[in-house]
């Protein structure tokens, strides 16, 4: 008879999350010398708060820059409707035509890569970006598509069934162990 023992572990504290966001902001500025061509787009819903903080971070590093901030909802682009419920979030809000822009796409957790694939398709309906870079707070592995991040807060090896929660208050892993009673 199998039992389930969930245990929740803090991987990053709130201060670690702050530091990771500051570091990624610096990396974004370092890699993109034309900040006026940059657009930061958060993925609804988990990526939007990180995108906002990255935009603030970039502005602090270069106060003369004005980097537009957007949000993309990928509900209509998913390939797994039948597998998981759609989470109603805020609608897509892309304030500028993305054609010839460099987009920093932001999400909280990179896992199978399927939501990123859907987001890339969604972005294309708002213009043809010159390049898309991917920023995530956590890369937990288990990719099912050829997608890799450009900026990572923390690499966390996980079991496929683990649950990860990311917020301003920290990063937590909940391990669901199946054992024998």
């Amino acid at each position, binding site marked *: 008879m199998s039992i389930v023992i969930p245990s929740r572990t803090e991987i990053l504290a709130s201060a670690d999350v702050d530091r990771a966001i500051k570091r990624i902001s610096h990396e974004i500025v370092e890699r993109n010398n034309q900040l006026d061509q940059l657009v930061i787009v958060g993925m609804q819903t*988990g990526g939007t708060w990180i995108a906002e903080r990255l935009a603030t971070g970039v502005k602090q590093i270069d106060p003369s820059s004005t980097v537009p901030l957007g949000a993309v909802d990928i509900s209509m682009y998913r390939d797994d409707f*039948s597998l998981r419920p*759609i989470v109603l*979030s805020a*609608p897509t809000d892309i304030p500028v035509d993305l054609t010839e822009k460099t987009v920093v796409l932001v999400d*909280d957790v990179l896992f199978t890569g399927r939501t990123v694939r859907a987001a890339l398709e969604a972005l294309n309906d708002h213009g043809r970006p010159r390049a898309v870079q991917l920023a995530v707070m956590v890369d937990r592995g288990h990719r099912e598509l050829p997608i890799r991040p450009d900026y990572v807060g923390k690499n966390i090896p996980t079991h496929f069934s683990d649950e990860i929660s990311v917020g301003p208050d920290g990063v937590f892993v909940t391990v669901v162990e199946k054992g024998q009673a």
Partner: protein
Amino acid sequence: MNHLLSTRDLSVDEIVQLLELADHMAEINSRAVPKVPALRGKTIASVFFEDSTRTRLSFETAAKRLSAEVMTFSASTSSVNKGESLRDTIETLTAMGVHAFVVRHKSSGVPKQVTQWTNAAVVNAGDGWHQHPTQAMLDAYTITRNFGDKESMAGRTIAIVGDIKHSRVARSNVDVFTRMGATVVLVAPDALLPSSIEGWNVTTASSIDEVVGHVDVLYMLRMQRERMDESLVISMKEYTDLYALTQDRAARLAPHALLMHPGPINRGVEMQVDPSEVPGSRILQQVANGISVRMAVLFSLLGGEISPAITLGGDA
């Protein structure tokens, strides 16, 4: 949600959620390329046994913008003319691989009947005098988005004017508007009111002049001459004297008041003013909103389970 047959199938929470989903669809419709792959591989059959311009084209446009395949059936050019029954027609189309039927019929209850002959989802696009649920949804969407309260119509007064008796639009709208908290006034001659409005949470008025100055929404219905038994009708002159929207009456609408009409408009009958000259007219906005709302309905039926909960993190 397996089918959408009547507004009564939906709770107020479900209506509010559907309208929120329509906001997402409206954003898609505002794009240069208004199309998403959400319903790729799904086939939607529009099966109309009664004439329609906007409802049919609106559903078909909604389906195409979600990348579904559209199958179009018109009774007038089909084997119905060779005597094929409704049931055989539905079973035949089902065998071709239809995921959803959008059904309009002159008899009440036909869409419900259709659910017994197919496993596909069924959407009522108007059945007799009974129901027209997507019209009520798009009207609720238009009203709530214009007044800025997305979840309620509390404190709003809506007058529905004209041929209530023969109107499925009126039945669906009264149900949705009152449950969302609006005060609804029916404005019609006795002959054009349903024989019983018991259980309807409405009041009545006997001329448009009684209400036009203090409503938030003036909802004009079409005079349905094709459904009318001539003996019911008061003279057309008497009707237009008391119930038509004239230029003078339109001028008495409050500045914030909306003028709505489900279409098609009978110019010179219930509408004696050019609606494009009424600042509060939202009649064309209703048409545009109809596409967003029908996309939301089709996506809810065919796009998998929808969860209203907002979760942080843990997503793929």
